[in-house]
């Protein structure tokens, strides 16, 4: 009997396929195309304590085997998420992960404290709340916050430590490939009590409009994602998985079942799908069915048989 199930920090996932933050909204839009219940989990749109309007001007640009985005964490804020989105997200039988960003340390701590308190309150009322937190210290698209915390290990340590102090929810830290040393960063997260790490977020990148002689993006730089970054993401997941004993969630350009297998062989406990959601609206369903078929064909009963074999 094949099982795609996995467990990360005590949270059960029916399969290792999780939709990445910023690419799946809060699930509602894609639910018109397939049931989110097929998925292992959903990471909601990146949240900040207060609502954020995001960046002005062009936000999307396609590049060779990838895309640049400069959305800039547009989101309704934590309070609106808990009030307007969480009921919808938790009605599907799939793990719900809240992705949290911030402009400063206090914002991170307050946002996480609010979500944690809400989860506890809902639990006392026998209602599902957020299952897991993903701490975003790696968004390259906001001038203050996000990636500035994710580059230097000792700066990030403060965020992870203080957030850990205010939440008992399973805590995964999303790492930036722009970090000075991503392995060191992951080790720090483990030392500070994170339950897992997810990697990689987008690469800081650029596109110039040569006719206008300026960057395509008002914020000059944007985040590169998609198949173009997959080989680098795979290498980083491999390195990090060998350096830590907490689960590693792999992501970066995953667009096929074969990509999922590669990340699993590199040591990923689960994976996230981002840009591929835009290529095929039914990407999640396609990958879940495809992975099951692959396991049957290859006579792999559990992904544990191939996890981290390299």
């Amino acid at each position, binding site marked *: 009997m094949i099982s795609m199930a996995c467990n990360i920090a005590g949270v059960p996932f029916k399969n290792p396929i999780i939709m990445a933050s*910023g*690419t*799946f*909204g809060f699930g509602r*839009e*894609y639910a*018109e*195309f397939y049931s989110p219940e097929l998925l292992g989990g959903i990471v909601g*749109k990146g949240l900040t304590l207060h609502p954020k*309007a*995001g960046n*002005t*001007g*062009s*936000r*999307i*640009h*396609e590049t*060779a*085997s*990838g*895309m640049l*985005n400069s*959305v800039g964490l*547009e989101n309704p804020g934590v309070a609106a998420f808990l009030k307007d989105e969480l009921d919808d997200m938790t009605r599907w039988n799939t793990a719900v992960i809240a992705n949290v960003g911030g402009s400063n340390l206090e914002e991170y701590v307050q946002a996480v404290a609010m979500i944690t308190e809400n989860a506890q309150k809902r639990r006392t009322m026998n209602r599902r709340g957020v299952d897991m937190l993903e701490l975003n210290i790696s968004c390259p698209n906001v001038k203050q916050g996000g990636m500035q915390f994710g580059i230097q290990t000792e700066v990030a340590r403060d965020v992870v430590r203080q957030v850990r102090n205010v939440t008992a929810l399973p805590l995964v830290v999303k790492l930036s490939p722009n970090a000075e040393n991503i392995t060191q960063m992951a080790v720090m997260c483990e030392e500070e009590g994170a339950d897992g790490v997810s990697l990689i977020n987008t690469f800081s990148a650029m596109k110039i409009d040569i006719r206008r002689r300026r960057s395509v993006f*008002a914020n000059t730089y944007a985040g590169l994602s*998609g*198949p173009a970054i997959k080989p680098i993401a795979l290498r980083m997941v491999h390195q990090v998985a060998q350096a830590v004993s907490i689960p590693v969630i792999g992501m970066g350009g995953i667009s096929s079942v074969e990509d999922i297998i590669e990340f699993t062989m590199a040591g990923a406990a689960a994976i996230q799908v981002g*840009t591929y*959601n*835009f*290529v*095929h*609206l039914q990407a999640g369903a396609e990958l879940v069915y495809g992975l099951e078929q692959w396991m049957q064909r290859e006579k792999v009963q559990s992904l544990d048989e191939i996890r981290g074999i390299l």
Partner: protein
Amino acid sequence: MANVISNVALVPGIYVMKIEGTFKGEMGQFYMLRSGTGYPLLPRPISIYDIGDEDISFLYRVVGEGTSLFSQLQPGQEIQLDGPFGNGFPQVEGSLALVGGGMGTAPLLLAAKHYPHAHVYLGFAQQSFGVDAFEAAAASVQVRVGGSIVEKVDPARYVNMFSCGPTPMLQALAEKTEGSSSRLYISTERHMACGIGACLGCTMHTRGGNKRVCKEGPVFPVEEVDFDDLHGV
């Protein structure tokens, strides 16, 4: 996936692609089209040009690698398409003008078919295309090649106006409409990734706050449009 029935250049670089199947769609809505399996990754948002009982058509200009791939499709080949998406033009009553510029004429054909009494104004920079389709659908069609089609439009004559085209044309029409009682709806354009409202890549600043062109748009009442933001596209 669906089969291409025909893919014909009206003038160099501008094609009408007809695709086989039963499709839904209202005037001003769009589909996300993708050809091939590799690069480019993202589907392209293309307005519905026409719908028959067993087909759907798209008018497109070859501007980059995505649309270049479209232009190479032969009858019988497959294309990926999802839709219809977006809000489309509203149902209105009373006199109506349809004002289109260049490729902005594409989403207006269904409106012309829906409202045969509408007066159609079509402007082109260098060469007209697709005019005969409008002439078959509408009683009145005025065309201008070079110069501004907006000069021919008197907003005071119309209860409603639908428009799509280059931002300077839209802004000129908006300015000319100010002070009249005519209600102007314009169809906007933005780079998109998902097309369904999830990625926030096509968010536009409007006077009512941020709006997703793919979900709350692409059609907006002119009073909501922030032309400074639109010029930044």
